[in-house]
């Protein structure tokens, strides 16, 4: 049982890293971006290809995946996303679905539709078991590694958001764009930076998750709903909301698939609908929040 909890936490942390960029950009620009998974897929493919073609070590691939996706995110923000910030949501949905379809077909065309495999280094392959009986806790080293990396990133993000100058600018822009701009904050740069970092984090998540979630061209469509659940349930006003939502989702999904495999994703989706009917603005949003 503890093992399931542990796996659920690892899964949840991974989802959080994948979706946190989406949460922040959505809160910042009120932009419904269904193409977020495409950036994660790019990160995953960067890792896989670098490791297979040039034998780059896994640990070095992770920052490269981050940089690659962040760069792509920055370029796309500048060129394609910016004109759409003030368009109606229908346009944004159509645009980002289109982008997702293109990403899926492109990955299929250049890399092939087969599932990609990441060769983990030896020291990440083992598994440690503590205790025994019903309370046995089996920890895969790789999952432990994921939790550690994601926890470090979360703390880092929280620090940047609450303690640094950029963080306060970002929060000001999220709260009210116009007033923030009036105070001399260059909102456009904040948008660009945030979008790039958010995409980069998604890319990093995709690289880390290639082993756990699987990586093939349909990745952006398959996990789109999960990212959106994290954002919709967690709310977009803080990063603790999405973190808790991601953990909840991860644990519910792993436990559901383990105990009642017949129901599959049913539990997660029903839970999401119930929560959203109960609290349409998200679980962890204070009343009257945007």
């Amino acid at each position, binding site marked *: 049982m503890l093992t399931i909890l542990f796996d659920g936490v690892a899964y949840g942390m991974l989802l959080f890293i994948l979706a946190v960029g989406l949460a922040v950009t959505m809160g910042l620009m009120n932009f419904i971006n269904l193409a977020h998974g495409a950036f994660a897929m790019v990160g995953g493919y960067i890792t896989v290809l670098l490791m297979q073609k040039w034998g780059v070590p896994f640990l070095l691939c992770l920052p490269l995946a981050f940089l690659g996706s962040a760069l792509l995110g920055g370029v796309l923000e500048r060129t394609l996303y910016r004109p*759409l910030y003030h368009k109606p949501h*229908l346009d944004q949905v*159509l645009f980002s*679905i289109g982008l*997702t379809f293109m990403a899926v077909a*492109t990955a299929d065309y250049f890399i092939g539709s087969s599932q990609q495999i990441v060769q983990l280094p030896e020291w990440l392959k083992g598994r440690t078991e503590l205790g025994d009986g019903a309370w046995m806790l089996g920890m895969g080293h790789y999952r432990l590694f994921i939790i550690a990396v994601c926890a470090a990133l979360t703390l880092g993000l929280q620090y940047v958001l609450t303690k640094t100058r950029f963080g306060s600018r970002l929060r000001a822009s999220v709260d009210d764009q116009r007033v923030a701009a009036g105070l001399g904050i260059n909102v456009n740069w904040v948008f660009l930076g945030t979008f790039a970092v958010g995409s980069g984090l998604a890319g990093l998540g995709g690289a880390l998750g290639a082993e756990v979630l699987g990586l093939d061209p349909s990745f952006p469509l398959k996990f789109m709903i999960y990212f*959106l659940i994290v954002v919709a349930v967690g709310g977009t006003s803080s990063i603790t909301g999405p973190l808790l939502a991601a953990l909840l989702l991860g644990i519910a999904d792993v436990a559901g698939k383990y105990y009642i495999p017949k129901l599959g994703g049913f539990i997660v989706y029903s839970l*999401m609908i119930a929560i959203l*009917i109960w609290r*349409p603005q998200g679980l962890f949003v204070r009343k009257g929040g945007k």
Partner: protein
Amino acid sequence: MQTTDALSQTLLLARGRWKWWELVLWALALASPLLLSSHALIINEIAIVALFALSLDLILGYTGIVSLGHAAFFGMGAYSAALFAKLVMPDPLVGLLVGIGTATVLGALCSATILRGTDLTRLMVTLGVGLILMELANKLDWLTGGADGLQGVVMGPLLGQFEFDLYGRTAAWYSLTVLLLVFVLARRFVSSPFGATLKAIRDNRLRAMAIGVSVNSRLAVVYTVAAALAGAAGALLAQTTGFASLDVFEFHRSADVMLILVIGGVGWMYGGVAGAIVFKLMQDAISSITPQYWTFWIGLFLVVLVLVGRERLIRPWTWFGKGKPGAHHE
């Protein structure tokens, strides 16, 4: 008071009046299976997709609800019509009514989920309902055949005398007739005072509430009606192909129908029909060149469409004017 009432009545009626070119258009449509008899299959598909897009137009174009899970009702109609034909009786018209009925019930249940929250919440909830139904159809394999789809659906003759033939001519006429009937009814529906209040809700929900429109009940009704029509489209598909598979619930179906509607223009009765014709012909042409990468082109099309502006793309005469996008409702 009397005169303003009379005036608004004539205005509403004038909007809903049939023009001569519409009659010509429908006459041509009904004649098409005979004129283009080798293309009856694709005419059937177009009619079904047009009906599906029409139902989405009621909630997206006329009421402003962005839904990514409209395939839920389509699939519900398809599976119930197919199951009814297989297990109870093969009569197509009764099956169609059953398909509409189950989709209506589902729509009425789901309408409670779209009343509150932001666009994002609605998007998620509609998407979630679609996924749940797909999951159900997948897991209840003793009933639905699971991932293999529901096979062995044999339809009886239409009205007891017209058999469904291999060339799909009966099917095309059947679908076109249903489409025409639904179109007439839907047109009456949106040009009624009720339809006018829907547009008021779309344009400004708060103001609509302030003048005394009961927003929630209107949304629930229109969502249920749209679900019923989507169910009809699904039932037609299952009956004319004799098959229902998980594909009817897929995400891409919801996305496609949204694209179809957007191509034809939202909030316009012929939007769905025009979009369906363009989309199906485009799909036919492109997938004969690159069957596998058709989604790339559709994605590119969507991106360009949005960047250029939906309003401008279907109105070519605005391309060379001052590039000021039209005012948009929020």
